[in-house]
């Protein structure tokens, strides 16, 4: 009985949000006694396994092949399914992201296993494990049970803490890749490269987010960028802002975009549609700045300020800087 955890990495650097799946696997180990193995898939994994030695896994499995340089759904799901078979894994887990959402359902189909998306809680019930997951954009929480030998699941990163490091060494093993697994009729062409600078949206401690009132991408960056940089924050956006080209798609927060739960979420010119709230309402502190006193975002806000964001955001940025300067003296 074991669990297989698929980790996501960027050129060998494991994404910290993906490690929340290890916490979920530990929870399963407490409940059912199942050990867990970690799986990395890629072309040049290099030293990637080194940082994983103290995560308490039974083994680290590397699936390395030159044709696995880009995460194509066909071959990655075949490798994942074969890795699960080779380990006799009953449960396959990854943290929810576009990477895992592309691969895990297909692997589930190859294994003939059911799947749960965005699991937020796991506990023992009378008839086996019980899971909770949000449905209807988080407006309802479903409690579900699964009747199957094998289960595939994604866990919602915001619902699980980062795993604490444990003692001990973990053996590293290599999975033998069969050429047939790689024949999927899919070819990687290109990926947009973004200048790094601000923290990753799903990993940031603070998120500054904007809606359509920001007008255009230059205005968005000019008005919100200063506040974001003062706070060391990632930038986020509403669907409306992304649809109208004000912000890139990977900044979208919401039901169908990214789900974030930072310590501080600053919503600027965001009305608060349920689809947007679904992606940020678990944030610890929510600030809403909006001209419209009736905007639904104020019902979710810890602190609400009815104001024109074009005046309030620069003033807030300056007030925070001034406060810091005073604190330094």
């Amino acid at each position, binding site marked *: 009985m074991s669990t297989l955890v698929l980790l996501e990495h960027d050129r060998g650097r494991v994404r910290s949000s993906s490690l929340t799946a290890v916490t979920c696997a530990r929870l399963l180990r407490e409940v059912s006694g199942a050990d867990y193995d970690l799986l990395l898939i890629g072309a040049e994994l290099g030293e990637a396994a080194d940082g994983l030695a103290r995560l308490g896994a039974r083994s680290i499995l590397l699936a390395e092949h030159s044709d696995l340089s880009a995460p194509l759904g066909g071959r990655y799901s075949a490798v994942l399914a074969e890795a699960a078979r080779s380990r006799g894994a009953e449960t396959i887990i990854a943290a929810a992201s576009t990477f895992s959402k592309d691969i895990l359902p297909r692997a589930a189909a190859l294994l003939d296993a059911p799947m749960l998306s965005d699991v937020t809680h796991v506990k023992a019930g009378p008839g086996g494990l019980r899971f909770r997951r949000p449905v209807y954009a988080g407006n309802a929480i479903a409690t579900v049970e699964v009747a199957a030998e094998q289960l595939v699941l994604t866990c919602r990163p915001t619902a699980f803490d980062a795993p604490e490091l444990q003692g001990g060494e973990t053996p590293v093993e290599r999975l033998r890749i069969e050429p047939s697994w790689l024949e999927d009729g899919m070819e990687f062409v290109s990926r947009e490269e973004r200048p790094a600078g601000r923290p990753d949206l799903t990993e940031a401690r603070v998120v500054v987010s904007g809606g359509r009132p920001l007008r255009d991408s230059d205005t968005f960056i000019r008005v919100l960028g200063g506040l974001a940089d003062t706070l060391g924050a990632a930038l986020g956006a509403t669907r409306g802002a992304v649809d109208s080209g004000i912000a890139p798609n990977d900044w979208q927060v919401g039901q169908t975009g990214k789900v974030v739960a930072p310590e501080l979420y600053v919503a600027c010119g965001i009305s608060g549609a349920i689809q947007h709230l679904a992606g940020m*309402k678990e944030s610890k502190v929510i600030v809403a700045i909006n001209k419209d006193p009736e905007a639904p975002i104020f019902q979710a806000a810890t602190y609400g*300020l009815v104001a024109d964001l074009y005046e309030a955001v620069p003033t807030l940025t300056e007030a925070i800087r001034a406060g810091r300067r005073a604190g330094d003296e």
Partner: protein
Amino acid sequence: MKILVPIKRVPAPETKIRVRSDGTGIETEGVTFVINPFDEIAVEEALRLREGGSAEEIVAVTIGGEECVEQLRTALAMGADRAVHIPDARLLDPPGVARVLRAVVEREQPRIVLMGKQAIDDDCNQTGQMLAGMLGWPQATFVSKVQLIDGGARAECTRETDAGLEVIRIRLPAVLTTDLRLNEPRYVSLPGIVRARGKPLETITCEELGISVEPRVRTLRLDAPASRPAGVRVTTVEELAARLRDEAKVL
């Protein structure tokens, strides 16, 4: 070329969802049901491929009770050529839906299955990938741009990923799942509604497809999410900064 577009009946996205007090589901009284918005984008993309000369026939399919015929009629009114209704009033899980769709694919032999990346009711985001896996077909998920290349032998797809836009090429036949930016679906026109009445709408049972599916994921109950404690309105930026610093201690 034939395109199969699976669609799902869901509450309209602007619906204020309320959980029934006994936890058995959501309140449906007064709720308007529509085609799942991502599936509507799939119907629109299929229409554009046909209008661009790349496809000849668009078949919409749904699985569900009699009420789902309403959404098939909408797809026909948008411009789909035919519709198939698989009557099954149970709540199937995504593997169950994918197995039914695989049987429909084997019967209809489409070159492309175009469907929403997720339904906005159960938010699973699984069915398209599962169908592709069962068929052994290439997949392009979360697509925001589709272009047929190599004389229709392959498709070049732009995908919306967490890291930004990604471009892949896949061999057809394939399964494509749609993201929001792919297109803006057209409104249903009155002539479209009239024409839809004359279009074929076939009912095929799972038995006729030669399959039986049993859901393995069982929903025990639904609960309303925990509500956030009421916040406060601040009157000035200075007050906001002070509270963030001294009260919330997040600065």
